[in-house]
């Protein structure tokens, strides 16, 4: 999915095409046809310049109508960074992404703990595995009010948490103030995942341990029945 201002679409396309040999179609936000697609990625970037609120305007793009239907039919939907922001603004995922608590744009590699491996996105990881993935954002502070947060946790919707190198979920390991160190969540049905870190930037061994690769591999396994 490409919106005006998306800039991480090429990385995602490259990973899927070059590393996994998949057929990829770039969907411009004004197209509203998603036929023939098994999975959708909402990439990172600055759709609409992050004007008003990150993802707030992209949410109303013509294509988003059909994305809701696509998700309802069980299609796989992955939102990365700005994509996660768009998914929360749309209501396909609960919560909101606010300004980083330190008020600065953070660009660095963080540790994430994989909390669930029984999703189409994480089947290739080990439960509790600690991975290193880069983040690059100014509004990555995940927020959900108390009661809804309890429900989210009870329903095991948290998929990735910020942690230290030993896998401990500590305040020091939290780069942006997200409640419960939440870095990525899934909807109740398990087919829509949103995450602030960029797994597509860690798929090529040239760029470091390809800790993002299992995520795409899991998705392909799921879609090909592998």
């Amino acid at each position, binding site marked *: 999915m490409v919106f005006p201002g998306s800039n991480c679409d090429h990385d995602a396309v490259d990973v899927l095409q070059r590393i996994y040999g998949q057929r990829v179609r770039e969907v411009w936000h004004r197209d509203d046809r998603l036929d023939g697609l098994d999975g959708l990625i909402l990439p990172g970037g600055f759709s609409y310049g992050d004007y008003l609120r990150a993802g707030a305007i992209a949410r109303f793009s013509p294509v988003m109508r059909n994305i809701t239907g696509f998700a309802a039919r069980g299609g796989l939907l992955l939102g990365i960074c700005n994509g996660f922001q768009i998914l929360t603004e749309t209501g396909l995922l609960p919560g909101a992404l606010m300004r980083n*608590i330190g*008020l600065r744009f953070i660009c660095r590699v963080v540790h994430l703990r994989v909390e669930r491996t029984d999703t189409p996105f994480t089947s290739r990881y080990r439960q509790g595995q600690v991975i290193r993935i880069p983040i690059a954002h100014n509004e990555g502070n995940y927020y959900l*009010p108390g009661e809804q947060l309890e429900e989210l946790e009870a329903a095991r919707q948290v998929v990735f948490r910020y942690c230290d190198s030993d896998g401990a979920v500590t305040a020091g390991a939290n780069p942006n*103030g997200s409640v419960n160190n939440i870095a990525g969540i899934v909807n109740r049905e398990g087919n829509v995942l949103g995450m602030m870190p960029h797994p597509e930037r860690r798929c090529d061994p040239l760029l470091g341990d390809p800790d993002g690769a299992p995520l795409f591999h899991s998705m392909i396994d799921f879609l090909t029945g592998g």
Partner: protein
Amino acid sequence: MKPAILDPQGKAVLQAARQLGYEEVVSVRIGKLIELEVNGNDRDELKGRIEELSRKLLSNPLMETFEIEWNRDPDD
């Protein structure tokens, strides 16, 4: 921002204000001002629609509250 939400921008500005000597300031919260010019004849209908727009697009009800101030059209 809703009162329950931590406002790091507001906090940063508060600290700066107090450092400047304005100790009487005890809290700062920062929001947005959006000016809309609207056309229409039915004032009540307009109010309803703009409230709807404010909930749908202009604010994120999870994090933000809003207030609408109506100014009179100068030609009124």
